[in-house]
């Protein structure tokens, strides 16, 4: 009886804690939805800010985030894919891959503000790119590099070894096998990795604080060397640097919800693609 009571009590505590965590997380989301939903409109998304940031929309911030994300993925994808392919297909073991693996894991754990300082010292100052889309997206590309490498590697690992061997047995070279057999098989999972890193790059604030983002720009960015408004920074700036708190907090609520929608939508899409791909594989294997 004592044993049963212990089990009941133990599982009760576990369930209570889980319920508490889920309730709090749900409450946060519901709070943000409730406060922000009324503010989002077509004009809010498509118009620039007006009246010293107290009215109008957030279009320049959305556009700026789009630029930053686009270029950071563009910069990060070639080395990311190459690294994953090299580690998985050419040198799965050995001291060299060990070092690369350790550096990937450590890079993933570097605080985001440290990336920001690195970007400031190297891209903004040393290379003279200034506070710009270029500096910001280069910085962000380092932030998402470990994510791209490790998720691509996982994707490559799910491709069965027998397919590679079959291709090689037919006389294909290693690179042909990778390009024509392995990569096409892994494409959906690689796409998942890309979408996840888009979500990550879109939400990061600290790396762009000193490298790309400004509170307000008079006009939309003209080149890679323009400074930009960005959605996550916009939220932060509105609530901490704003001069008209009562009116600006509404815009901050709306911006938070837009960012939240964006990131959740991207993650959901990534998870869906991965699930479909997985079930497709299970079918082949059976």
């Amino acid at each position, binding site marked *: 009886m004592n044993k049963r009571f212990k089990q009941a009590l133990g599982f009760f505590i576990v369930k209570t804690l889980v319920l*508490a965590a889920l309730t709090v997380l749900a409450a946060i989301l519901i709070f943000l939805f409730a406060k922000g939903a009324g503010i989002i409109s077509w004009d809010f998304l498509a118009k620039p800010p007006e009246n010293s940031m107290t009215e109008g929309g957030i279009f320049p911030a959305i556009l700026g985030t789009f630029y930053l994300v686009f270029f950071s993925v563009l910069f990060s994808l070639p080395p990311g894919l190459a690294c994953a392919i090299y580690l998985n297909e050419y040198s799965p073991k050995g001291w060299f891959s060990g*070092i690369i693996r350790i550096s990937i894991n450590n890079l993933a754990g*570097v605080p985001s*503000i440290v990336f920001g300082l690195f970007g400031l010292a190297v891209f903004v100052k040393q290379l003279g790119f200034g506070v710009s889309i270029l500096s910001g997206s280069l910085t962000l590309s380092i932030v998402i590099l470990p994510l791209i490498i490790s998720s691509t590697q996982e994707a490559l690992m799910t491709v069965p070894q027998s397919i590679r061997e079959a291709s090689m047995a037919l006389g294909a070279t290693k690179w042909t096998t990778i390009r024509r057999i392995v990569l096409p098989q892994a494409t959906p999972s690689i796409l998942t990795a890309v979408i996840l890193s888009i979500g990550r790059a879109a939400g990061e604030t600290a790396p762009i604080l000193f490298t790309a983002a400004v509170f307000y720009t008079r006009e939309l960015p003209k080149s890679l060397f323009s400074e930009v408004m960005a959605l996550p920074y916009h939220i932060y700036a509105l609530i901490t640097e704003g001069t008209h708190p009562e009116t600006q907090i509404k815009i901050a609520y709306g911006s938070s919800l837009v*960012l939240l929608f964006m990131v959740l939508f991207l*993650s959901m899409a990534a998870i869906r693609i991965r699930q479909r791909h997985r079930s497709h594989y299970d079918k082949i294997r059976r």
Partner: protein
Amino acid sequence: MAKKGEKIKEKLIEYFLFALSLASLVFLAGIVVTLFRESLPAFRDIGFFRMIAGRDWYPTYDPPDFGILPLIAGSFLVTLISILISVPLGLAGAVYISELAGKKEKAFLKPALELLSSIPSVVYGFWGMVFLAPFLQKHLELSTGYCALAAGIVLGIMSTPIIASLSEDALNYVPRAFKEASYALGANRWETVTRVIIPSAASGIITSVILGTGRAIGETMVVLMISGGSAILPQSFLEPVRPMTSAIAAEMGEAAFGTPHYHSLFAIALILFGITFVLNLAAEMIAKKFRLKLGASR
């Protein structure tokens, strides 16, 4: 037989991929070099120990003070509070998903964890500013709601999904046979979870806690927005603090290029980097042992 030209092409591709795969190593090394180079003037002019042990952080006064002890203390206090929240909740979540949840619940909860951990920190920080800090101020009758407790709570909530998801992986890694053997000996589910599964997964769980701690120490936006920002050695967790990350983020914008203030902020970043680097290496080593231990028994 492959032709000679083809062989050369194959080799070239391999070297090309090899060269590109050095990127992460190069960036990590670049970060270390840059942090050292930019913080050396601060250590040289102010002195390493005077900085580390200094109790006053008044970088803009004349003469300035660059003691970062209050900032380090702030970081640790906030991180401690966040761990006290995220570890029990995250662990409970992991146990629930791997041992109690039904198939359908699992299929819902695992992606949900991933979704929750993708929420940007600035959104959590925003929620902390508009809801939690005023809430705490009202109900605990504080002079300000922006304090170590508020930042710690938000950080804790934020890292719970991460710890849950990593710990769940660790629990899942425990071989089925362990569980079956325990049931065969007459243990019930609770006994099996607490005396067999959790102990076998202990190093995996510790890894997830270490990684979660590293994230919490390095988190910037949440603490920047809600920790209150006062650089004084905290006497209690209800006081405003200024963790290392928030000092860097808040002050780098104003610190003129090349001044002692500028370099001292890099010095803080170097110390921060050192802390997370050590945590990551520790997590890596423990995780490796864990896999070896359970891998052998699989």
